[in-house]
């Protein structure tokens, strides 16, 4: 009896498994069918609640019926399958009508349409874009976000309590730098630099300034990068990063079209640290000038 019951049980188990697989396939196909367009919330508070639950970022799309480029976004961007798929996995979307929610327009300082704001789950702006953005670029932005932004949310909560919390400002700068939001990262690093913790600790100050310079190079802003690196080399002459600082100073000058200064920096790296990996890079970079 026991074995018979077991056999029946196994038979039903198998049927159950087959049924479960079929249901899963059916549900999966339904899920895919639903993902032909982006799901938009119309209310920021509701969107934020959903985003916090999933630890996902939000994208706020400010739009209006009279906005021609917004219609182009609808017709040629928001329906691109790769974007829809990435968006569904990574992001919570909110559409705010420019004319109907003026308090939101003021809050996010919206100057014109279309205007996209990327925020953490709490609605704190990380980056924005004004104007039409093509689907491939928007997809790249969406993909750059980590699947889980709980750490960014945690830091933001601390900063909402204490906007000058040094460790959170620095960590937020690091997190945003890691996902390629260099300008925003520099905003947090800049605030961290003003805190007493940075003023008292030269190692910390050096690290912040150096990363700000690297961010500026990523942003192709050679002038700002050079300013930070010149300060680093002057204030921290015995830094372990000196070789890299000189190499990147050369890069910064090159971006700023100051070829003579760039050559001088690269030459210093080669003559002062001839065996270093930086020297090899400097030799290659010299050839490009």
């Amino acid at each position, binding site marked *: 009896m026991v074995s018979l019951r077991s056999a029946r049980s196994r038979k039903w188990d198998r049927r159950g498994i087959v049924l479960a697989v079929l249901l899963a396939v059916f549900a999966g196909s339904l899920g895919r069918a639903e993902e032909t367009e982006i799901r938009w919330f119309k209310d920021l508070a509701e969107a934020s609640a959903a985003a916090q639950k999933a630890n996902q970022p939000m994208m706020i799309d400010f739009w209006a019926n009279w*906005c021609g*480029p917004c219609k182009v976004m609808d017709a040629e961007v928001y329906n691109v399958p790769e974007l829809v798929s990435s968006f569904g996995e990574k992001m919570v979307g909110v559409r705010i009508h420019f004319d109907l929610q003026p308090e939101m327009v003021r809050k996010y300082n919206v100057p014109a349409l279309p205007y996209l704001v990327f925020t953490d789950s709490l609605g704190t702006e990380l*980056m924005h*874009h*004004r104007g039409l953005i093509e689907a491939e670029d928007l997809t790249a932005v969406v993909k750059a976000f980590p699947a889980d932004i709980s750490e960014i949310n945690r830091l933001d909560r601390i900063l909402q309590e204490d906007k000058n919390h040094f460790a959170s400002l620095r960590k937020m700068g690091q997190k945003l730098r890691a996902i390629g939001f260099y300008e925003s990262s520099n905003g947090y690093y*800049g605030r961290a630099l003003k805190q007493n913790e940075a003023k008292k600790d030269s190692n910390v100050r050096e690290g912040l300034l150096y990363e700000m310079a690297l961010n500026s190079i990523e942003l*192709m802003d050679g002038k700002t990068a050079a300013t930070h690196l010149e300060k680093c080399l002057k204030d921290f002459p015995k830094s372990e990063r000196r070789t890299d600082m000189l190499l990147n100073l050369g890069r910064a000058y090159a971006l700023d079209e100051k070829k003579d200064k760039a050559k001088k920096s690269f030459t210093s790296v080669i003559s002062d640290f001839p065996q270093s990996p930086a020297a090899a890079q400097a030799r290659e970079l010299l050839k490009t000038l």
Partner: protein
Amino acid sequence: MALMVMATAGALRAQESVLSELKAQFNKDKGALRLVVLVSPTCPECVGGAGWIQDYVLKRYPNLPIKVYAIWYEMYPGDSPDDFPAAQKLMPDRRVTHWWDQKKTVGRWFHNVVPTNVKGEIQWDAYYLYGENATWTEQQPASLLTWGRTILKDRKKLTDKVAELAGPPTVPVIELRAPSSGQQ
């Protein structure tokens, strides 16, 4: 009063000369690609088109030898010269020259002389891309490489042509902006 009259007369003379200034600048810049952009300063499509040229042509090809001539004039309800300063900020690239064309002479000229698909008498929300050897004589400049209207509708034609001439963009990704420090 006399000063005001003189100033007004000077302004009018300047307005009448936008077409000739454009023509002179166009010929002076021979050797570079030249892009004429005809736009209203508040029409959302025009403003969007101008911003798109800044993002997808100028920012992505920071070293491309191209000169952009942005001619702004009143075409949309509410347009006025007061909108000109803000409009110029849409294309802040050093390769762009902006004009305010009160009499719409450039739009009228392009409508009459160069290909158009717009009804009425004035071309607008349009671009015309000319090759590096183009010269503007009494006739239209030769060597029109491509044109489009509206700018946004025909935007891919422009980037395809630029990519054909200059290769893939040197700045591959679009730059997002950080919030101002007060907001962060």
